[in-house]
């Protein structure tokens, strides 16, 4: 079941496109915003609401890397692993995350606080290495800053 708030937001997106189905990625993003991720039951609810088959919607949901079909932590860390950040040593930042949080790419801390994911170029290459936590971008990241940065996310 979709909440009335989710339905209201989805309808706003549907109004911007000529075919209902065209708003399905937006619908998935809306549900993910409210629920953290898109579970099978969430997927079914969105598919019904968008008048699509579950299989068709799942083929779309699983295509896009920022639609989460598995549970994620309360905060998602996206660490850029593309070329400029590689040259500038993102691996040191990754090592620091591994030491500090005890998780590798694709994993979530046991307390459900953080999920760590690699991400393609974040478009801030003159300030590499870069990462995002939820909606915030961090630039020129040094290993020793991580603890302080992570403190902001409970």
């Amino acid at each position, binding site marked *: 079941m979709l909440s009335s708030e989710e339905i209201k937001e989805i309808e706003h997106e549907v109004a911007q496109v000529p075919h209902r189905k065209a708003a399905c990625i937006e619908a998935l993003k809306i549900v993910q915003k409210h629920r953290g991720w898109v579970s099978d039951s969430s997927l079914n609810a969105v598919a019904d609401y968008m008048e699509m088959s579950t299989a068709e919607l799942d083929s*779309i949901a699983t295509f896009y890397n920022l639609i989460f079909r598995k549970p994620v932590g309360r905060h998602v860390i996206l660490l850029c692993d593309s070329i400029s950040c590689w040259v500038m040593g993102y691996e040191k930042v990754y090592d620091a995350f591994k030491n500090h949080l005890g998780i590798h790419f694709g994993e979530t801390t046991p307390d459900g606080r953080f999920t760590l994911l690699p991400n393609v*170029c974040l*478009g801030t290459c003159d300030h590499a290495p870069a990462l995002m936590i939820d909606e915030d971008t961090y630039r020129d990241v040094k290993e020793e800053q991580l603890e302080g940065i992570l403190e902001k996310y409970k």
Partner: protein
Amino acid sequence: MERPLTKNIHIDRPPLNLKEYEMTGGYKSVRNALKNMSPEEVRSLIQESNLKGRGGAGFNTGMKWSFVPKGPDAPATKYLIANADEMEPGTFKDRLLLEGNPHQLIEGMIVSSYAIQATTAYIFLRWAYKEAALRIRQAIHEAYEAGYLGKNILGTELNLEMHLHTGAGRYICGEETALLNSLEGKRASPRAKPPFPQVSGLFGKPTIVNNVETLCNIPHIVNHGADWFRSLSYSEDGGTKLYGVSGRVKKPGIWELPMGITMRQLVEEYAGGMQKGYNFRGALPGGASTDFLTEQHLDIKMDFKTVSAAGSRLGTGTMIVLDDHTCPVGFVHNLQHFFAQESCGWCTPCREGLPWVERILLSIEKGEGRLEDLDLLSFHTTYLGPGSTFCALAPGAMEPLQSALKYFREDFERHIHDKKCPYNGNHIH
């Protein structure tokens, strides 16, 4: 030196609101175009200015617009799309325009929509550009309030609706036909061409997809003319260009400069040269999918024609520098990891070939390579090259590989001969 695109961008403060933007001459081109020019006059002015697409392909923008069907028999619904899905590794130029002056983009889109008679415009923005999304939403809202968007713009017959669409990830969305599929709520697989989007694009209607930087140039060309625009450039491609440099240089950054500035000026003057203890070995001149250029090319002009003649592409104009402490094999492995991961999976050569290339490079980097692997890599650069795949992703991926095999062959051979990475292989993940 004139900097039309960035003169009103100050990174240390919020972008100009609509009133402030108007005080700098903002939205003047909408008045100029709608009141004094026909759509065809706008289009031919842009073609004459020799504005070439800033997304990387370098096609004449006015020419691209000319393929949109016109006249009473043409479909009434047409679309204009700003490609703001900047995801080419090493590229960070459109972010500056999107965050720094969203009204400039909206103004360019209104005039461009008029030229092609589009009725709806979308900005396809990548997910990660959160700050840009907030600022664009606010700017679109202000433009509606002021009557620059909506029905009967400035009392004319032009109607234009504009929407911001934010993505859900995947590099391939930047490919213009994949972008259309994504905007239609589908998997972002590229489409067969023809038909070209100009004739049958979004929802089957005539559609123009232009890069953000391309669209931001339009108001200035309309206000100041084609001759002025061409005079900004040091080369035959018109205008200024946003150039960027990243890697181990002293001052990585982004600058609006005359089109055709040399690579040396960019690296040594603007980026301040290499960091202490590091030497320049080469660079990808315009993003991850361009061929390496090396020291012998430092004095070439960074324009579409000259960079092509040197064996690479200007691409996005944002350069990634390879230094002498960084392993070229590891560098190319990182790129191929990216391309293999970002293949949409639609066509077999790309879906299957790129992971093989990635694995071969990894084995060489780990000291497990054989000399025959270099032939195997060369084989892939041919069979994943232009004409063998559905879109330009795999051919783009092969550009840095084929040029690395050419310019840094001794590095590949040393890995194989020594059975280890001479740079300590500290970059494998």
